[in-house]
């Protein structure tokens, strides 16, 4: 028999192995968590690097002579007559201003003024027309007007479009880019903060530069209003019953199992429910924010009920006993004492539920919140709730589908706005919790 002679102070090979295994295992854990955090960083990095540019937009400032003979032949400033001049009547004015610009600044370009003016957005003429129709006094004057450039020029200034990528493009030519380079140097083409993105509405396929996120933000706002008004009272009432009054029997068991299951039902199933019940059966209008809000309410209720029950449970029984002891009824105990003490927790849960609902897309697609595009801000609460609109995540989806890099940029920009809302809501929830939550 061989005796393993080792000193106590030296490490045996088995111990070495075990220690190595220990280190390896610890490393695996570290790798695991690093991968998780790395993915978060990549995601956030992607969002920021691709989306931040959406908040800037390229504009070109042109001196436009609003020739009276073309816009108002009679010269009597009659709105009805001036309205008869379509956008086609305004296109020559823009071309002309390019001609003037090129000769005045001695720009080197072989482009005709028609091709040069194509660096503008397709909506340029109608922008100009709207400007004139708003204030007829400008007719006959020369005004300096800020136009959107088209999305390729915008992409060129942002580095998304380069001379290599446009080799086979029909939409933009190298000569136009040469012209743009000269205009940038002169300060006539500039990137500026993109207010239209924050306030505007979606635009057609051909005009990504004019597409905005504002109207769908309003759509989301009205939806969240509906979710809050419906799900908070119903959720709190249901939780109070289940936590404070319900006898322990099979019916309450069924309700409880039901609620925890509903919390895990895929969101698209709620969309199918909304389509079948609200739209096909009850004939509520498609694409309306209040229908979307009702669908999201059903989805949010379980979340709110679960968190409300948890915060009701955390109120110690001694509070209830004390209230009952001085002669309050059970109902008074709950509404006068338990509920106020649980309120911070309930609010926190509600905000988190709302944040979840705000980012939800799938159910909205089924009740048609992408089919229509609202072109104007709703003017009142009723219109905001009932007229077709989109919502933030649905609008992002719509842009993602259009397979155009300019729209992708908008989609990422929309995501930044959506995430800002979500972060704000969650921060408020955390602050509420830290500030008001009591430990008993």
């Amino acid at each position: 028999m061989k005796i393993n002679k080792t000193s106590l102070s030296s490490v045996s090979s088995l111990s070495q192995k075990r220690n190595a295994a220990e280190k390896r295992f610890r490393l695996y854990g570290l790798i695991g968590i690093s991968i998780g955090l790395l993915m978060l960083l990549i995601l956030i990095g992607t969002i920021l690097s691709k989306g931040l540019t959406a908040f800037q937009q390229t504009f070109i400032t042109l001196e436009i002579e609003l020739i009276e003979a073309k816009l108002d032949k009679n010269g009597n400033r009659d709105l009805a007559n001036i309205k008869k001049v379509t956008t086609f009547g305004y296109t020559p004015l823009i071309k002309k201003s390019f001609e003037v610009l090129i000769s005045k600044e001695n720009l080197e370009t072989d482009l005709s003024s028609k091709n040069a003016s194509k660096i503008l957005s397709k909506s340029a003429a109608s922008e100009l027309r709207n400007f004139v129709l708003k204030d007829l006094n400008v007719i006959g004057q020369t005004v300096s007007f800020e136009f959107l450039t088209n999305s390729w020029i915008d992409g060129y200034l942002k580095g998304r479009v380069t001379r290599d990528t446009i080799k086979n493009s029909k939409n933009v030519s190298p000569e136009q880019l040469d012209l743009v380079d000269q205009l940038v140097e002169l300060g006539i083409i500039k990137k500026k903060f993109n207010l239209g993105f924050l306030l505007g509405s979606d635009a057609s396929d051909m005009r990504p530069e004019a597409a905005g996120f504002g109207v769908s933000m309003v759509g989301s706002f009205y939806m969240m209003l509906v979710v809050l008004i419906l799900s908070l009272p119903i959720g709190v009432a249901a939780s109070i019953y289940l936590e404070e009054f319900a006898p322990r029997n099979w019916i309450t068991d069924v309700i409880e199992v039901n609620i925890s299951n509903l919390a895990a039902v895929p969101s698209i199933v709620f969309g199918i429910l909304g389509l079948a019940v609200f739209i096909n059966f009850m004939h509520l209008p498609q694409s309306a924010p209040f229908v979307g809000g009702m669908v999201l309410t059903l989805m949010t209720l379980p979340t709110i009920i679960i968190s409300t029950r948890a915060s009701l449970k955390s109120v110690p029984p001694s509070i209830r006993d004390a209230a009952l002891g001085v002669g309050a009824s059970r109902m008074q105990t709950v509404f006068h004492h338990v509920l106020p003490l649980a309120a911070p927790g309930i609010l926190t849960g509600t905000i988190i539920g709302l944040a979840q609902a705000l980012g939800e897309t799938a159910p909205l697609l089924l009740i048609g919140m992408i089919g229509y595009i609202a072109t104007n801000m709703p003017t009142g609460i009723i219109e905001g709730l009932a007229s077709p609109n989109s919502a933030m995540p649905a609008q992002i989806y719509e842009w993602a589908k259009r397979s155009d890099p300019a729209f992708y940029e908008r989609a990422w920009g929309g995501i930044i706005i959506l995430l800002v809302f979500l972060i704000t809501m969650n921060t408020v929830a955390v602050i509420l919790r830290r500030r008001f939550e009591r430990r008993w």
Partner: protein
Amino acid sequence: MAGTTLLLVGVVLVVLVVFTSSYRVSYLVRDNYKSLNSRIHYYGMFGLLSTGLPVLIIYLLWWLLIPFYFEASVVKDLVNSLGISPDENISLLVGQVETIRDTFLSADLSKKSEVFNHNGKINYEVLASLYDSVNQPFDPETRPLLFQVGYDLWLLEKNANNSFHLVLFLMMAGSVSVYIFVVNPSFKARYYVENIVLGILIAAAGIAIITTLGIVVSMLFETFRFFELHEWKDFFFGYTWAPNFHGDSEMSILPLLFGTVYISIFALLVAVPVGLFSAIYLAEYASSYTRSIAKPMLEVLAGIPTIVYGLFALITFGPFLRDFFGDGGAFGVNWMSDARSVATAGTVMGMMLIPFVSSLSDDIINAVPQSLRDGSYGLGATKSETIRLVIIPAALPGIVGAILLAASRAIGETMIVVLGAGAIAKFSGNPLEAMTTITTRIVSQLTGDGDFNSPETLVAFALGLSLFLITLFLNVIALYVVRKYREQYD
């Protein structure tokens, strides 16, 4: 309109009664408060609840049920008055009649009476101008009888609405007058108010049940309609998914289920190792400071909306993969033709699922009692041996529960696969090929301009029901396992 006015007057009455009742009771008792049964505001509250609540409930019920009743009556009207032949599409006619009804509803009042002459003939000129006034396209080819039925329907609804409002008003007026004579200081106002409130609470708790029932009933109903039009054997046991809006579709759930399960497994292969090791590290190795930073950061991944992941898959991760595996890619292999694939959607979905696995597992590992660890250390085991041989086996049921919850999440996930997985239904083992899932098909079948009576649209409900049942099954097992495990150490 008269009905609505009555209703408004009723509401004003109810509000008045709330204000006056408290005052009345306090007037009756004057300074002798001992004779009061309840505190004064309960009398007012009872006034509000007893007069307002029934009216509100009946009004809501009316609003919910009226479309149901009228739809049935329209069909009866149509069948009786038109004598339609069996091959005509009833629901199409119903739709036409309802459009006509809506037109009459929104049109100017004075024009409506002129549409029909004294002898019941339709005055087409007036009708056309009526359509024009509400911006509805007018189709003179429509059967005259349809206009008649639509008009009758409108009239019927209008009269029904008016008489309903009258009844509501009488109810309110009645309950108000009864209330004024019934209430006196010895009336047990608090008792009744609390019982009514309890009833409201119970009703709110019932909404959860109603939602589930609504999901099941509405989808079952549409699914049965689907199976009337489509062979159920093909749906459950067919091999191809090829919906065709001209009819004669082959629609089987199997290829979709295959794609769903494949992508979910791929996602779990990413999420489970990463999530589990993160959980182990956080629970056993990390300092409390690291933990307080890393855990919430990981949970941010769960709070990001899925549309963000979808976009990331479509625009960033898919093309990134294609740069390696696609035509002319870094690996020189042409295995990937589209940015959308099982691997694209699966990996990104895995990212999303990491916190689902890690957070729950972390809680469960933390719930394993310290005595188990101490016993293991006392026997000379290293930390990793304790984790592998003691803690993980003890926490295994809970971890399995967490993984099942993540799996149910993966199967029901929609936006990532809609944007990242593609639209081709097939059985293929290649993770770099595009594949489709149940949820993507639900979206695509229901977002088109499909007719809700064609099997190609109705199939979405059958798919939805299957999805609901699959996830329900996973959830029930997972919740059962998690719960059972938690009880062991409490």
